[in-house]
């Protein structure tokens, strides 16, 4: 019996709960990766120990393929774990989590291959690896060195499992839409496609064809202005939420192909400036 998609999520939560993580819910705004959740970005800064785990649906408008590509998705799911400070046995604990969801490292070829991580929009970077399972990247493993331009001290370890890819290795399934979502039989059986295909099709059509660029440009301006206003009034979490909105709106414009190279760099710079201000405010609160 191969572990299904939702059971993998449940087991990861069980596992990381037992490791002392608070199990959070996904951030309820559009983000491109689990890293953007304030539970990672902001909590990575400052001296307070912090352990959290959560699923984060992650939107990558440029990767939308109308549900026709077996492994590229407009929205995929990440399982995000943040451990601050990074524990001495973090690799071993991580490998135990793989075993716990049914990926036996004696039967599969698990390797740590150099892959340093950088997010230009967050002004964040770290060193680590992509973890391979039989040649498939299943996890991004990063020791954060800085976020929003601030050094992380202590250093957190961030584990980002790509849930679709991980499940495809566990289930030995090629096409993401064929993954077993709920493990049920007969009429109750649900595949990934049953659950997510419509969203892929419609959101691809939205971002590549129907997205009204002038509206999104306007929304970007608004989100940026709101973020600045909230920073001035020292409301760090709402300010950061508007920074996330600006980031997602930029991703939409980028996917729509309406930004020239120069404009693109310019927009990235604007989002990074917002992220930096939010992190600065966060650090003031931490130290003030």
């Amino acid at each position, binding site marked *: 019996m191969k572990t299904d998609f939702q059971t993998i999520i449940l087991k990861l939560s069980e596992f990381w709960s037992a490791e002392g993580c608070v199990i959070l819910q996904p951030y309820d705004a559009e983000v491109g990766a689990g890293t953007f959740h304030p539970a990672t970005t902001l909590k990575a800064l400052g001296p307070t120990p912090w352990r959290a785990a959560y699923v984060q649906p992650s939107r990558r408008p440029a990767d939308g393929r109308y549900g026709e590509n*077996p492994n590229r998705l407009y929205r995929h799911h990440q399982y995000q774990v943040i451990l601050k*400070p990074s524990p001495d046995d973090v690799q071993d604990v991580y490998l135990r989590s793989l075993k716990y969801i049914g990926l036996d490292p004696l039967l599969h070829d698990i390797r740590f291959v150099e892959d340093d991580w950088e997010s230009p929009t967050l002004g964040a970077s770290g060193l680590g690896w992509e973890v391979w399972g039989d040649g498939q990247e299943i996890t991004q493993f990063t020791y954060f*060195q800085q976020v929003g331009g601030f050094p992380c001290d202590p250093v957190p370890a961030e584990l980002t499992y790509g849930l679709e890819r991980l499940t495809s290795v566990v289930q030995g399934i090629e096409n993401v839409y064929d993954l077993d979502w709920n493990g049920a039989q007969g009429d109750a059986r649900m595949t990934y496609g049953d659950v997510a295909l419509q969203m892929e099709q419609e959101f691809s059509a939205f971002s590549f064809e129907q997205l009204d660029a002038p509206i999104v440009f306007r929304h970007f301006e608004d989100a940026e202005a709101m973020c600045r206003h909230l920073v001035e009034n020292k409301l760090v979490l709402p300010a950061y939420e508007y920074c996330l909105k600006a980031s997602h709106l930029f991703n939409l414009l980028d996917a729509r192909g309406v930004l020239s190279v120069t404009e693109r760099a310019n927009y990235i710079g604007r989002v990074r400036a917002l992220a930096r201000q939010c992190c600065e405010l966060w650090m003031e609160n931490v130290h003030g």
Partner: protein
Amino acid sequence: MAEWLFEIFSEEIPSRMQQGAQDQLKTLAEGHFQAQGLPFDTIRTFVTPRRLTLLVEGLPLQTPEKQEEKKGPRVDAPQAAIDGFLKTTGVPREKCLVQETPKGNFLFVIKQEPSHPTREVLPSIALSLLKEFRWPKSMRWGHLSMSWVRPIRGLLSLFDGEVVPFSYANVDASATTYGHRFLAPLPFEVKNFKDYEQKLRDHFVILDAQERRDLIRQEITRIAQEAHLKPVKDDALLEEVTGLVEWPIALKGKVDPQFMTLPREVITTPMRVHQRYFPLLDSDGKLAPYFGVIANIQAPNNQGKTIVIGNERVLRARLADAQFFWDQDRKKPLDNFNTDLKTRLFHQHLGSLFDKVERVSKLSSRLAEKMGADPKTVVRAALLSKADLASQMVGEFPELQGIMGRYYAQAQGETPEIARAIEEHYWPKGAGAPVPEAIPSLILGIADRLDTLMGFFTIGITPTGSKDPYALRRAGLGLIALCLNPRCNFSMVDVLEWAYEGYPWSELTAPTIKSKKEAVEDLWQFLLERFKFFLRDTQGSPYDHVEAVLSVAHDNPTFSELALRTQALDQLMDGKDGENLLVAYKRASNILRIEEEKDGRLYEGSVSKASLIALEEKTLSDTLETKSPEIQHLVQQGDFIKAVQNLATLRPYVDQFFDKVVVNTEEEQTRTNRLHLLAYLRKTLHQVADFSKVEG
């Protein structure tokens, strides 16, 4: 005699850094043992993905006693100076020695550094090694402030079979280490290096990278041969894979046959670059539908079937992507991709990539005319040269730039020369890599690099120290390699000017824009520097030979001429003739310099035959008279080898002249004439190179 075994056990070290780390640890350790005056027989270092190991053999158990001699002031120095010396050395006056030196009698103190157990000095050496080591990129972890390439999780330190205790990064040194991460996860103790190496092997780790590399090569070859295939030779891939595994196991996977119609590079790029697989070839050298993969684990029973199936699945997904891009990209003519290049910057102050394409196209046309090639072909190739950068395939696999351009050009019926030039204008891809032979490829490659270099040099972006973000040094070396083709008969300075003229400088808004004269001069000097470097690397020419050649070359030399001339000089200076000729040259030019200075005039007149007296000067003069025009002719013909062979024949006449003839005689007319003869000799030699620049 004893050995010190020191292992730094960490989380996975990036493969690309391992060889460098192994070398650096050896150099650092040698330095420290030498500085401490500790003799040793050998220092060896080892690296695997999870450990960096040092072995020092033949160390004494006790450090040698050291005597240090300290020299003080003279015995009759002021008392304050003597007191100061006694105070710093801590030795009373009566224990000081007095030694006689040419400058008088001096006080000396001999300090004895007693012998210590070697064991006691090792911890400080170990700590220095850890602190002084420099990784290309390093990180902090946990609460700690020190950095290493990845977190340090163990330190093994054994001297003469016993632990040398010290701590670093919250880890205590011990006699314990770990084997393979999955196959033997429990720690174990070792006694010495031999035991360490053997136990690692028992615990599924091959310590020696060379052994792992050889094993991987053999194993990949073996699984290929099982299917009557052979692996593609790829040393870079082999090196990388060696750094990814401690226990290599070769497995063979299948490529889904439906993808075998894709262009070869489109199949092998995801294999090699993304998945680190070895492509396999059939007996005709054609790509076979199989690949070799090196796993880091020996799976039980099912012989790695799960692993193979998993890897095949990943490759299939990547090739499905590639197939999609291949189909999509070909729906649109290449020319249309140029529209996208209008919004892609070449550099913020140098316009878009499309602007570049247009400049390169014009420059190629001028070069083609000069070189007697067909401008139409190069202009068309130039226009399409960057189009593939906007294709989906190159977006996904940047390594395929140029290669996809060739395929897409072929697919839309461009001539083979054009398709080839699109790919080959990126050649040479590195030092020693192939240079295009086809003329359109050559011209396009030259024009592209000239344009890039001139653009950046004009706005003041030039390589400094280790900073060269636009890889201008590589572009310079590439340009030189291309211009060595004898078809490149143009003056470099001329074409640099053309490149400058291609930019619409008045419309560009860079903060600095150099004048044509300044930009051309700066770039030309840069290229000459690169040229010296290039000749040293490719034909082993010493810098001074290149200098000597540059000094006499006319204003607008071609690189091929300079290279041949330098090669000829190298050949001459390799033998006895060159050496002696150089001595004679130096003698002649010294005499000339001194006499010219003394008399306040130059001796450049012609030799008067009538005034030649000694047999040796007559012979030398006659020889020069026949040889000099001959050499001049050969130089003009570009036959530098023959020219220097002729120079070499001068040697006995020159030697005899200096043996028998005194230049500075009383008789003024004879003296002047002999000085003229020396000047004639110098002039003859200068036809090939300025020998005053050659180091003897």
